[in-house]
């Protein structure tokens, strides 16, 4: 593979920065400052918990919003602005272009998440909490959020290859919600005692991305140890799923008539 995807990725990242995407960090900072000051006043015994829970939830929610709303416009915007045609005239394959776009948005999300994690660390320091060995689980929870965002970005990009941004948003959020409730779908199937429904529910459970795998916020807040095998399994799961979705996106986009 050529260096072209890296060039596209860097340009996508620059474009996101130019579009003031990282301004969400201001909201995050305000949220953390507000929580650090207010929680001690309005609650009892959970100052540290709230900072971690709120910080990780905000990192996840802000990241998801960015992944979905920027992801669905990645390809569509290039087609709308007709910049895609001049790009594809260069020695770059459509698949490489997609990988570059994906990498660029992922880089933006990683930078954004890293800065927010730094903000969370500052907020924890402000509430007078010393850093402990168990805080490694907070970093693992952040890593799981990045994995989740990687998967959501791939899905958004996939839908944006053949659909409008509005529909792509709906599809991505639909898959996300289905993925969050995947275990419930399987359990409901089991409750029916009908082998066909059970089979379909189980198939759906393994087909949709199980986003609940990446939820380690509560464990991190309580300083619980997250097993390294889970980290490894989630990483492999994301790698495999993202590869699958990007291959599908590439196949769809390669066949798309851009005239």
């Amino acid at each position, binding site marked *: 593979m050529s260096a072209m995807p890296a060039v596209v990725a860097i340009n996508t990242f620059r474009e996101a920065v130019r579009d003031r995407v990282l301004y969400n960090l201001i909201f995050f900072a305000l949220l953390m400052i507000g929580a650090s000051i207010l929680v001690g006043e309005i609650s009892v015994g959970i100052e540290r918990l*709230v900072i971690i829970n709120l910080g990780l939830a905000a990192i*996840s929610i802000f990241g998801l919003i960015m992944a979905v709303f920027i992801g669905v416009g990645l390809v569509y915007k290039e087609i709308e602005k007709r910049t895609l045609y001049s790009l594809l005239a260069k020695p770059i394959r459509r698949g490489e272009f997609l990988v570059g776009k994906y990498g660029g948005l992922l880089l933006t999300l990683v930078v954004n998440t890293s800065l927010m994690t730094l903000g969370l660390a500052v907020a924890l320091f402000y509430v007078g909490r010393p850093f402990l060995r168990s805080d490694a689980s907070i970093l693992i929870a952040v890593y799981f959020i990045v994995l989740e965002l990687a998967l959501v970005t791939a899905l958004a990009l996939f839908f944006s290859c053949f659909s409008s941004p509005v529909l792509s948003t709906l599809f991505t959020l639909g898959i996300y919600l289905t993925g969050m409730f995947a275990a419930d779908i399987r359990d409901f199937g089991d409750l029916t005692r009908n082998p066909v429904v059970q089979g379909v529910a189980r198939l759906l459970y393994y087909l949709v991305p199980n*986003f609940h795998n990446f939820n380690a916020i*509560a464990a991190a807040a309580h300083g619980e140890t997250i097993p390294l095998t889970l980290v490894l399994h989630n990483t492999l799961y994301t790698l495999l799923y993202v590869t699958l979705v990007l291959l599908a996106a590439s196949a769809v986009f390669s066949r798309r008539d851009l005239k």
Partner: protein
Amino acid sequence: MTFSSQTRPVWSAIVGVPLLFALIALLQVRIDAQTRSVAQQKQEMLLRSGTLLRKLSLGYDSLLSDIYWTRAVQYYGARVGTPQANFELLWPMLDLATTLDPKLMAAYRFGAIFLSETGNAGAGRTDLAVQLIKRGIAANPDQWRLGTDLGFLYYWRLQDYPDAAAAYLEASKNPQAPAWVKLMAARVAEKGGSFETSRAIWFQLYDSTSDPNIRRKATEQLRGLRAREDQMQLDELAKQYQKSYRRLPVSTKELLEAGLLNGIPVDPEGFPYVFGPDGKSHLDPASSFVIPPEPSLPAAPK
């Protein structure tokens, strides 16, 4: 274009925008007044199912739990100390907070206190407090402090000394539990209801928290225990005095002069105790100290 015509829109905005916002705020106050009863009704209806809320929280259940716990604290804080305080929604809120995050220790430990306090200081539902702590122990078997909290509830609120001793003993089996938990189990089993044991329990509660409200409460109870113990001893001495002098003492000074006391005992505010015509000791009316009421048995479970 003249200067005034250029600046007119700016001045209109400076005056007009705050005015419009003031009108909006005024309108909101009216709307709030009209919808308050509906909002209260909605709150009660939405609060109940923790399992459903957990499903709908999309993985942010621990944050939602913090929110419900904070709401419970606010709910309790807004009612505590008010006449005819009604804590009806306290249990559903604690139930939700601990269902959403079964590891939220603050909700178990403080929540049990909010539930078990009597009068206008709490819901007076020790039965629910015991249920909450038992649920906490089931979800967090590694937390020995919940076991001592259960022991405290049995001992102080229910005066059920065998169950209190059993709770302390169970907590002492945790490898993390300090040695005093086992000692407490033995002491409660042997001398349940004694001043010595009650003092030890309140002292441990004081020592186990950094929350200023709980520490103040424990200090009050410790001071109250001291005053009760003083009065009990003075009443005994008054009986001895009566045997020797064929009359009841009228002051602690008489007990001192009779050689029954080594000094004049004072209450936690520094006032000497006084005797009533029945020979029973009391706090000096000039003293601002009030002995906290002894625990009363909880209402029967609904």
